[in-house]
């Protein structure tokens, strides 16, 4: 292979990881919520609110750390509204999640009105002298921004938590059968609140990745449907964190390759190309879902089912 081609591939891989990272955050968060048995369809709304909160806070204070914290807090706060309605007020999860998305779109647009299109330098990739300059491996291992490393660290932590810790065991038990978990004496509602809030915080982070790193600005509805893709990814991954990340990169890759093909001069309607990622998602969903037993085996058994004591 010519060095140019290798460089080209490295660039595409880097872009793929970046395009996939907002999805990694949001989908891992949703995965935890769903593992506790709660289906929150409001990911898109929480991402948007996180994006605008993160951007406004970073713009106002000049600190990216504060921006990220604001995004986490805003995402979690919105998720708690969902939690309050579904866990305390016993509203049905599906319409409440949809309402959360619609509310999040409206709220973020409204709150973000004064900061629309304002510039921000954006969080830069790290640069370790020496290491980042190694050909191919350098940029692939040491050329990302901090949040990408954070997303992978969260993945590792989640893998440990879900499969190796007692907390993870309890979480999964709640998602399998809230009634049994309750009978053993675990605080089901509190655990679900925590899982939902975590999901919101992660969606907020995913949104902030867009508004602080990926395209450092605020634009209304800038998530452009990524929240929904994140939801699809959780199913795609059959509720396994590692597969969520793989799926997110795959999805990012489809988009990036599509754009690169155009740049190389392939003559296809851009409209038809733009359909690709969505059609790909449907196809994958179908492939994953067609084996009913496999889905049943992996899906949290209590997913979407309400649980109320008393």
């Amino acid at each position, binding site marked *: 292979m010519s060095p140019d081609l290798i460089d*080209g591939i490295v*660039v*595409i891989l880097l*872009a793929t990881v970046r*395009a996939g990272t907002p999805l990694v955050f949001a989908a891992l968060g949703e995965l935890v919520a769903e593992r506790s048995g709660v289906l929150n369809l409001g990911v898109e709304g929480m991402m948007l609110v996180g994006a605008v909160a993160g951007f406004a806070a970073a713009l106002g204070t000049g600190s990216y750390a504060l921006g990220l914290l604001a995004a986490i807090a805003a995402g979690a706060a919105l998720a708690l509204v969902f939690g309050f309605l579904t866990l305390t007020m016993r509203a049905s999860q599906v319409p409440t999640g949809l309402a959360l998305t619609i509310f999040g779109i409206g709220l973020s647009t409204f709150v973000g*009105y004064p900061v*629309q*299109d*304002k*510039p921000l*330098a*954006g969080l*830069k990739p790290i640069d370790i002298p020496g290491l980042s300059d190694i050909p191919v491996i350098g940029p692939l291992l040491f050329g990302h921004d901090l949040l990408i490393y954070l997303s992978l660290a969260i993945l590792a932590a989640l893998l440990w938590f879900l499969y190796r810790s007692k907390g993870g065991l309890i979480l999964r038990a709640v998602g399998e059968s809230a009634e049994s978990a309750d009978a053993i004496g675990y605080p089901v509602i509190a655990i679900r609140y925590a899982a939902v809030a975590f999901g919101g915080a992660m969606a907020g982070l995913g949104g902030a990745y*867009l508004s602080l790193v*990926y*395209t*450092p*600005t605020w*634009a*209304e509805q*800038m998530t*452009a449907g*990524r929240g929904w893709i994140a939801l699809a990814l959780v199913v795609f991954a059959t509720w396994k964190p590692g597969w969520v990340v793989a799926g997110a990169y795959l999805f990012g890759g489809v*988009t*990036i390759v599509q*754009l*690169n093909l*155009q*740049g*190389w*001069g*392939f*003559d*296809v*309607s*851009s*409209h038809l*190309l*733009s359909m690709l990622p969505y059609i790909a998602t449907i196809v994958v969903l179908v492939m994953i879902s067609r084996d009913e037993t496999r889905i049943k085996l992996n899906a949290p058994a209590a997913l979407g089912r309400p649980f109320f004591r008393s």
Partner: protein
Amino acid sequence: MLRPTALLAAAAAIAFATTGQAADPLKIGFVYVSPIGSAGWTYQHDVARKHIEKVYGDKIKTSYVEKVPEGADAERVIRQLATSGHKLIFTTSFGYMDPTIKVAKRFPKVHFEHATGYKRSKNVATYIARFYEGRYLAGIVAGKMTKSNVAGYVAAFPIPEVVRGINAFVRGMRSVNPKATVRVIWVSSWYDPGKEREAAEALIGQGADVLMQHTDSTAVVQAAESKGVYAIGYHSDMSKFGPKAHLTASTHDWRGYYEARVKMALAGTWKSGAIWGGIKEGMVKMAPFNMAVTDDVKKAVSDATEAIRNGKLHPFAGPVKDQDGKVRIPAGKTMSDKDLSSMSWYVEGVDGKLPKK
């Protein structure tokens, strides 16, 4: 039947009423397709709206509606403005064409100004700028500044307006650097920062070191800034989004046009018409240059600007060859406005094919 005296009295009353109203400010409405934000297509229109407010003070009163969808809603909003006493209404997106014409029929006394359309009537004027002149100048800057001889172009939809811009850019670029070519990526959206950014990075990855855009967000300039390549802004001066990357921008300036049209409306001399104004009319301007732009580049641009202004230079003066090397406009001829407004082929120097539909 009214007696003559009564008629006279009525006429006097009407005359009196009209003079009485003359003290009221002229209400002017603006219909925007996107939020105003702080850069972009709508932002430039709003700059002009603020400008006329400053110029005419309390003689006028302006209102605007943002984010009006180009469907059934446009008609309603335009009508709402007309019924609520707005006498001059600017509808600033192509999709408002039919709604504007339709509402105008109902309100013959109200003057309408539709940007970028081609349907006119007695009380609907149209206006558009020769954005391609600015593209040509941007091309000169890009052609001089590129080291890789590849420029990248992030474009929305392959409509004539956009294709014309790409072609003008390439012709400007190759007028100073015959080896330069441009690569185009279509993102199928006027405004999708994420996708624009991805497209920009793909172009950079493919060797482009100057980026140009025909989309509405600032993501392309930001991508260039973070990757250490150059970009040329569009619509607005986008330098604050890429202090190092932003070489200049091809901007629209509607202030002069709006000022003139309001003046006519105030004086009662407003007439319908079609304006396609460019550098000469002050509708197209280049934003201030970046420090990185050397004096000889600046001079090349200002010479070309001058030549376009006094009619010596036309970006599509023959010979104009298309991608396959076929001469479309022979030497000595210039492309007509009609051909310009329906352009659907690439000139020589564009890599890749125009998406055939």
